[in-house]
């Protein structure tokens, strides 16, 4: 068992991994990584390694779950047994079931579901390695997988968490900060529509601290949004450059 650090922010105001309070962990996003899927994406953020695949819109199974006026989004958030320190059973835990629901609800507002009645869109999120903030990284990658599949969307959904650690509001909690800090506020956001599609919190924050955390998280979201857009374009820009040579 690791020892608990005494302070999460040192005297110079730097966090355990050397970041400033308002700094994001480096993030890498890649699109189109699973050839069989209609759309897919991969994200690495901190030690998080998450893969997302999309199948659909396609025939609804089972048929009685289909809706007459729109498509149904099914979402499964799942952690691999080796993704965490102590092996996790492959059976879905209550946490995974709740996260599957809130992640689905964070993405639904972005998709033009009304265009494909009686169909289903299957979204599979596999967390290969977890390091704090998996739900946010999952949402960010899932948006890309949906866009990659050609499903029309109102906007990309991007997510980022803020929290409180040693009396300071910080952006993008890593694992230790998540476990030992005093608050965690994950936020999913659609920048073009100024829409918060996921919001949760555990911990204790005053009203003012909460406001600061939400604003900080949205700021982080906007930064990641730019990386998302580059990842979507990367496939095509790469080909264009090759051809122009």
């Amino acid at each position, binding site marked *: 068992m690791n020892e608990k650090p005494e302070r999460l922010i040192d005297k110079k105001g730097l966090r355990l991994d050397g970041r400033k309070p308002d700094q994001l962990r480096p993030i890498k996003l890649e699109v189109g990584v699973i050839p069989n899927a209609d759309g897919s994406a991969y994200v690495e953020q901190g030690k998080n390694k998450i893969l997302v695949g999309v199948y659909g819109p396609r025939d609804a199974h089972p048929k009685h779950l289909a809706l007459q006026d729109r498509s149904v989004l099914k979402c499964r958030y799942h952690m691999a047994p080796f993704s965490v320190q102590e092996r996790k059973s492959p059976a879905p835990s209550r946490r995974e079931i709740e996260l599957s629901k809130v992640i689905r609800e964070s993405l639904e507002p972005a998709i033009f579901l009304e265009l494909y009645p009686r169909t289903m869109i299957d979204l599979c999120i596999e967390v290969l390695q977890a390091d704090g903030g998996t739900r946010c990284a999952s949402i960010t990658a899932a948006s890309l997988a949906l866009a990659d599949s050609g499903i029309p*969307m*109102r906007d990309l959904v991007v997510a980022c968490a803020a929290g409180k650690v040693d009396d300071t509001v910080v952006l993008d909690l890593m694992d230790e900060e998540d476990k030992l800090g005093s608050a965690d506020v994950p936020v999913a956001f659609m920048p073009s529509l100024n829409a918060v599609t996921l919001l949760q919190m555990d911990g204790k924050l005053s009203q003012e601290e909460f406001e600061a955390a939400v604003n900080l998280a949205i700021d982080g979201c906007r930064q990641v949004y730019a990386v998302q857009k580059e990842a979507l374009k990367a496939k095509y820009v790469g080909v264009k450059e090759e051809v122009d040579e």
Partner: protein
Amino acid sequence: MPTFFEPKQIATPGDLLADGDYVAGENTYKEEQGIYASRTGLVEYDNKKVSIVALKAFYIPKPGDIIIGTVAEIGFNGWTIDLNAPYEAFLRPSDVLSRPFKPQRDELSQVLDLGDLVVAKVVSYDRTHDPQITVAEPGLGKITRGQVLRITPTKIPRVIGKKGSMISMIKQETGCEIILGLNGVVLVTGKTPEAEQAAVRAILRIEEESHTSGLTDRITQMLKKEKSRLEDVKSE
């Protein structure tokens, strides 16, 4: 009335393309006064209409479309055809045979079996029913030979080219018959497997580079090189 993207610039979902008195074209939507992209693709302006030529999208049937599909299921009163699209099509016996017909499963599989490919035309489709197709017209029916490939449906117009220039050139250079299903499935029938392969490779390359310029020339060059290479091999 500002626009925020250059023509042929790549936009992604949620990008604000134009603000003001514009009309939302393909793969865009209007919210308040702004036109936003709903798919990744190249921006196109046509007077007041702002559209996105999508780099990837799936096929939604329209009556009159020519499509190529695979028999996925044989039911009691017809075949279910996989169109490589969100919706499966239904083919009734009356749309296949010219004579009246007793619906028995054995007879149906003798006409069209699981895995058979058909070139068909979309008869009807709306939001409440799966599309109905027919093969009871000249030029349609079961496919017995050739090579089949799938590309994203939005690239089919690029394979056709301006006034059919690209597809005529490919047919000429390879000597192949090519049927383009609007659902992104393409049938290539040639005199030799090598000729068919050349056509297939050309089409796949068009799909990958469709958003670049000078494509027709590059594909023509590629096919000419291929043709002379094959002739060299033959003459050895």
